[in-house]
């Protein structure tokens, strides 16, 4: 989220102070970790319920060394990001169609409005019935979950393109199909990216949900498995891994947004959007 940078009043200029400032931003997390470790060390909490931070890191390290974490993370990432990409492409196409064609709007509009309220995780058991446990069920759920936010944000972004922009393009001889590709999409790109960012959050939730409901592989399955077998340090380790990965993915998308949308005059305001 990084709604704004911490108090700038202190520490201005110089690379040492910018390092300190960056460290200062993450200090609260370090404090939480410290408290976590202390609480367990001092036996304030039963170790059976809460492994210490140290134990969690050791378990995570072991899982990394024997490849367990990497393999499962890759499987989950493949499902999540694969579904995100497919869902985004289809979502942009449908949103664009709905915003430019009344017939498309009349057809997809009611469908979108109705399925918006359906929790896509509820489809996982149905998909398990149809396709069994595995990538198809998982990715299909992810695609459906990502579709809606991307459709809606694309639709609103394209609808909000100022008519004078479209008119200028047409006056300069832009044929109709090029207007979609070279004018509407770039103009709506902030909105579209925002929708994709929301979908990014969804894709991880869906992948992990589907894996926890029923799966043989994946980080969700790993966490669930260790939870069931009582190996809580490993469970926490897997959790730590996915939290870091999801955070990194969100940051990466934000960085991409800042690069591709550096021309937008409210990109900095948009960055503050959670």
């Amino acid at each position, binding site marked *: *989220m*990084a*709604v*704004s940078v*911490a*108090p700038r009043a202190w520490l201005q200029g110089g690379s040492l102070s910018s390092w300190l400032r960056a460290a*200062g*931003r*993450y*200090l*609260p*997390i370090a404090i*939480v970790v410290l408290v976590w470790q202390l609480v367990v060390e001092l036996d304030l909490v039963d170790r059976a*319920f809460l492994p210490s931070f140290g134990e969690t890191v050791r378990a995570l390290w072991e899982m990394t060394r024997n490849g367990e974490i990497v393999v499962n993370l890759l499987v989950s990432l493949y499902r999540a990001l694969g579904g995100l990409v497919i869902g985004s492409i289809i979502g942009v196409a449908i949103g664009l169609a709905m915003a430019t064609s009344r017939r498309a709007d*009349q*057809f*997809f*509009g*009611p*469908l979108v409005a*109705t*399925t*918006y*309220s*359906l*929790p896509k*995780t*509820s489809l996982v*058991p*149905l998909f*398990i*019935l*149809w396709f069994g446990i595995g990538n198809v069920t998982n990715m299909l759920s992810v695609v459906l979950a990502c579709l809606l936010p991307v459709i809606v944000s694309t639709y609103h972004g394209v609808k909000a393109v100022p008519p004078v922009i479209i008119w200028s393009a047409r006056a300069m001889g832009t044929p109709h199909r090029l207007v979609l590709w070279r004018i509407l999409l770039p103009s709506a790109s902030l909105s579209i990216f925002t929708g994709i960012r929301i979908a990014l*959050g969804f894709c*991880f*939730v869906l*992948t*992990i*949900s589907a894996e*926890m*409901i029923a799966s043989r592989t994946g*980080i*969700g399955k790993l*966490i*669930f498995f260790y*939870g*069931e077998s009582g190996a*809580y340090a490993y*469970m*926490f380790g897997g*959790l730590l891994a*996915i*939290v870091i990965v*999801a*955070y990194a*993915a*969100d940051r990466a998308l934000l960085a991409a947004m800042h690069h591709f949308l550096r021309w937008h005059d409210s990109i900095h305001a948009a960055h*503050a*959007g*959670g």
Partner: protein
Amino acid sequence: MAERAHAARGALAALWAALRYCYPLLLVLLLWELVARAELIRPLFLPTVTTVLEQFWVLLFEGEIVAPLLVSLYRAFAGLALAVVFGVLAGLWMARSKWAHWALDPLVSLGFPAPKIAFVPIFILWFGIDHLSKILLVAFTCVFPMIVATYHGAAAVSRTVIWSAEAMGTSERKLLSRIIFPAAQPYIFSGVRVTVPVALIIAFTAEMIAGGGGVGAALMFAQRFFQTPTVFVYILVMLATGLVLDLVMLRLRHWLIPWDDEAD
């Protein structure tokens, strides 16, 4: 006499417009029914619409719809209430205190993109499989968007408004309660509206993963025993619940915040 005929024509026209709007949905239902009847897909995988509707009535009279639904709704809303209270307080505090912002911002930044559903096993471990674990998971998940929404609402109050109030001798507490909180209400309400479906989804999903009653557990139970019509019934129940709640939120907004007109 002519008035009544006119009113009847108006109602008929409205009905026709509503049908025309829903035509894609009716088309889908029709397609579904035809494909299922012709058994182009095995009934085990795709029961007919009529079978599903029949099953709905059966389950309704057996008490298998309302009771689990109430359980899920209770968990979702209890969790949401907790999230709203903590989220609004934290968001307001972050907006007004630089130290609160410094302390909480990294935690919110880390928590917001994290798939909080992954915490189900932890919450089951700590709080059991009945209501408490689900309620707290819902609260844990929903607190983040509530903090962000409240923070934005409070931060959006123009500083000239705050300066004017301070110049007129408003204390910090009064400032919060009489100026900032009201100004942030549309944002807060927006946040709640967006978070209600999240609360529902988390409640349903946690039940699907861990069991312990509610619609999600019932759905998984039906799936395990290949009771496909029942699976469809519960999916439709979840869909209907979401739709009704969204409509309710829209009405509530009109009633609670009539001065703010935000386009949908």
